[in-house]
């Protein structure tokens, strides 16, 4: 502690990680977590585009139920399968931890990099390899099993791309495991002096909880898809009843991973929301410990509830009852988080900028997503709602309305930090409003469709469902346009955006105390940290048109316990 530098750590830097080295090879072989994060971001957003186009095709086909010339019924089945698989395995799972987390996590810790930079690059290339397998599977005939790969359909289907995509999922799983492992070690070993667990930003708590799930649950998915490949390729009966296997066993294996995976998707998003709401309300987060522990609680409980996907599968009724009861345990920590975020708004100084728009959208959408989970956790009502559009609507509110909206919010929150430029607030708000309105039109109608009995994965429907389907498709177009505008103004800002100050929003965690974009090594010296949610030492600086953290006062406040 004696030799640490306590001066403000925003020395004028001329060099940054983008200009540190140049050329294709400097990116391809980089070990810099920031560059790997950016490469992940580009890859994930490209996949998001592909998955989004598939979604729009699916919604458009539902405008015209029956035969249409541009999409056969088999192609429809392949399109919704591809949409689901791409969005889950290539987009949402890596989006926050691997893309944003990679960029932000070491900087928030005041570290130069993650613990294992080479493993980090390796996991990115594993992602690329997994994505190549997915693309190859399309050339090999695509796959039409639904993203859940339920047996025995997946062991019998004639679609040629099933084995390639399963191998892709297997490889993507390792990418996810390595990222999780890397983050666990980094958070344990590379925290700076003064950053105790309860001084650690909540985003890192969430990423840490996520990493635990990634490391513990993903191997089960790997084994499951490997068994399915063996069954398909060598006709060894494991899941297919006609070869002596048990199809319900597959569902247990699959959901043992895929339910925790839901929290791999949404927990990091919750972490982002904790950051966004605190920073843009400019006041201390409310109930730090409750939010932090609720992340860990969700991570633990997430392993115990997989059977609630199988209330109608034919598993024993006793298990249905037990899984239903345990499922409610994940509702509590989720509710606690929502109440804590709300209380953080109380007596804040709330900036109504694009990022906060996304944060508030998250609160709205996650509340709906969470509450509509209740009738699905109750066995008797789930039996009516299972495998209908109600489930589709529910998980889109959680996966997209929460996880992805938080990711887009985080992208805006850290965009000035990552790129060094500001985006257009005007277009940002318009696009966010379009996404919000479009999303609700698209998916809220699906609650009614589902509770009225419309099964999922149908390309035909009864005339009574027509109006809801039309509104839903209309909403999806508005949402698509919103994302298109987002892409345009973000890319435009790269060329014409105003130069970003180091701290445009008034954050107090470490990433706001290095320049935008950060230098190659993030910090010249290991920084000391105060309370990252204490904004009392954050002041507006007219000369840079940004905020500065008075590090001296910030750390002093943390030691005296002030600022709470």
């Amino acid at each position: 502690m004696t030799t640490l530098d306590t001066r403000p750590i925003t020395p004028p830097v001329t060099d940054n990680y983008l200009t540190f080295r140049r050329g294709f090879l400097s990116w391809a072989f980089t070990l810099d977590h920031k560059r790997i994060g950016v490469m992940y971001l580009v890859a994930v957003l490209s996949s998001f585009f592909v998955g989004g186009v598939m979604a729009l095709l699916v919604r458009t086909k539902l405008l015209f139920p029956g035969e249409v010339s541009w999409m056969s019924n088999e192609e429809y089945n392949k399109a919704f399968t591809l949409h689901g698989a791409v969005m889950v395995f290539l987009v949402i799972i890596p989006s926050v931890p691997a893309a944003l987390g990679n960029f932000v996590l070491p900087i928030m810790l005041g570290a130069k990099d993650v613990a294992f930079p080479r493993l980090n690059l390796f996991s990115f290339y594993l992602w690329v390899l997994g994505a190549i397998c997915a693309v190859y599977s399309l050339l090999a005939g695509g796959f039409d099993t639904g993203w859940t790969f339920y047996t025995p359909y997946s062991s019998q289907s004639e679609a040629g791309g099933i084995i390639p995509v399963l191998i892709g999922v297997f490889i993507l799983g390792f990418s996810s495991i390595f990222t999780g492992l890397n983050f666990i070690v980094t958070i344990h070993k590379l925290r700076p002096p003064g950053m105790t667990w309860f001084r650690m930003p909540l985003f890192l708590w969430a990423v840490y909880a996520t990493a635990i799930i990634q490391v513990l649950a993903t191997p089960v998915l790997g084994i499951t898809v490997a068994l399915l490949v063996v069954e398909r390729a060598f006709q060894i009966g494991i899941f297919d009843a006609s070869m002596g296997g048990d199809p319900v066993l597959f569902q247990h294996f699959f959901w043992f991973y895929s339910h925790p995976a839901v929290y791999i998707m949404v927990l990091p998003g919750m972490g982002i929301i904790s950051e966004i709401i605190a920073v843009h309300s400019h006041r201390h987060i409310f109930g730090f410990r409750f939010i932090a522990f609720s992340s860990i609680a969700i991570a633990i409980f997430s392993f115990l509830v997989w059977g609630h996907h199988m209330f109608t599968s034919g598993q024993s009724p006793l298990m249905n009852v037990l899984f239903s009861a345990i499922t409610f345990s994940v509702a509590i920590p989720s509710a606690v988080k929502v109440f804590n975020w709300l209380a953080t708004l109380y007596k804040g100084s709330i900036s109504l900028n694009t990022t906060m728009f996304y944060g508030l959208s998250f609160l709205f959408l996650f509340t709906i997503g969470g509450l509509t989970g209740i009738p699905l956790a109750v066995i008797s009502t789930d039996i009516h709602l299972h495998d209908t559009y109600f489930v589709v609507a529910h998980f889109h509110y959680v996966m997209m309305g929460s996880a992805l909206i938080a990711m887009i919010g985080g992208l805006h929150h850290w965009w000035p930090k990552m790129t060094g430029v500001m985006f257009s607030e005007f277009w940002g708000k318009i696009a966010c409003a379009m996404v919000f309105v479009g999303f609700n039109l698209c998916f809220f109608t699906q609650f009614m469709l589902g509770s009225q009995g419309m099964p999922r994965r149908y390309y035909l429907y009864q005339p009574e469902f027509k109006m809801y389907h039309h509104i839903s498709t209309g909403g999806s177009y508005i949402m698509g346009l919103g994302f298109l505008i987002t892409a345009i103004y973000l890319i435009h800002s790269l060329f014409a955006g105003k130069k970003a100050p180091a701290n445009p929003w008034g954050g107090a965690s470490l990433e706001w105390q290095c320049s935008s974009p950060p230098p190659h090594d993030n910090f010249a010296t290991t920084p000391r940290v105060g309370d990252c949610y204490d904004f009392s030492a954050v002041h507006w600086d007219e000369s840079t048109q940004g905020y500065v953290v008075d590090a001296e006062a910030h750390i002093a406040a943390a030691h005296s316990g002030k600022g709470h």
Partner: protein
Amino acid sequence: MPVTNLIPTLLMQSSATPGAAQPVTPKTFWLPEGASTFSRQNDWVFDFINYINYFFFFLVVGIMLYFVWKYRQKGREVYARGPSHNTVLELGWTILPTIIVVIIFFMGFRGFTQMKVAPANAYQIDVVASRWNWVFKYPNGATSDDLYIPAGKPVNLVMRSEDVLHSLFIRDFRVKQDVVPGRYTSLWFQADNPTEGEKFHWLFCTEFCGKDHSNMNRKVFVLNESDFASWVIEQGRWLDKIPAEELYFKAGPKIFARCASCHTLDGKASTGPSWGNYDGSGNIWKRSNDPNTAHKVDGKPLSELIGVGKQYENAKSYLRNSILNPNEHLVDPFGPAMPTFRGQLNDKAIDAVIGMMEHLDEFDTKAPFAKKTDGAAAPAPK
């Protein structure tokens, strides 16, 4: 539902009074009409959760909007001082939801135990699901494609699948159960009110099963006890009562309705080869009887299979085998997707089907596939 009814309904055993011709629960904004003895209880739980959800949703969003308006940023110096924790408050909003969800869990648990155990006197119907067919078998051996059940009597469906997972969902009854290959699953329900006239309840397949998953739906008719008793006897015998000379045009289209989910009559593409002329080699009867046919089966012209001294003496034998062992020969380029009809169609039924093929030109190519009236123009569509 008025509040005064809530408590009695919650305590009441699930036995709605029969007789009234109106649904047990009417169609609402959220739920379709309820027609089984489960619907009252289940809808009540659903509505109860919904009201709680409305409350918390408007609470959260209301508070959020109020705070956002009241505490919006003013000026550039933004530091705001607010409480960073409050243990009593936080424990409160941890414990209160816990109590609520425990109550809700028990409501669902109670409904589920009723749905799971079928009464001992339940009327059993065996269900066989295959891609993309439902077959319902009644105790007297009668089978049907749509489900007919007696009113006011518990019905137990014992189900198995011939290929992949399916799931039987009757939304108005609020019941659903996966149909799993390699095991029997069951579900029971009781509908007290007969369906009137053209009315019926939808039955959907809700587990993705491939290409025609969306078409795997059927109708459920509820008949009063005496109607059902005569229907099921009639259904067991209907084929016997048709005289031989009327067999192909009376029984043929009725049986073909089951084939129609995969085969068309007009040559259009579907899951299986059309019975009509789709590849220029004539309809199914013509191409099977043409010694020079270009129609290919297993990669060879069909004529190599049919003829004196060949595997099939005549076209009828080949067609019969295609119904009973559908995957022994595959028409190019179709895959092995057809379930066997062994045990489902007897000799007379197969005669009717082959007879219909033989006289295919006489039939309407659109459902209900009835025989066209001789010489007259096709009737105007209704």
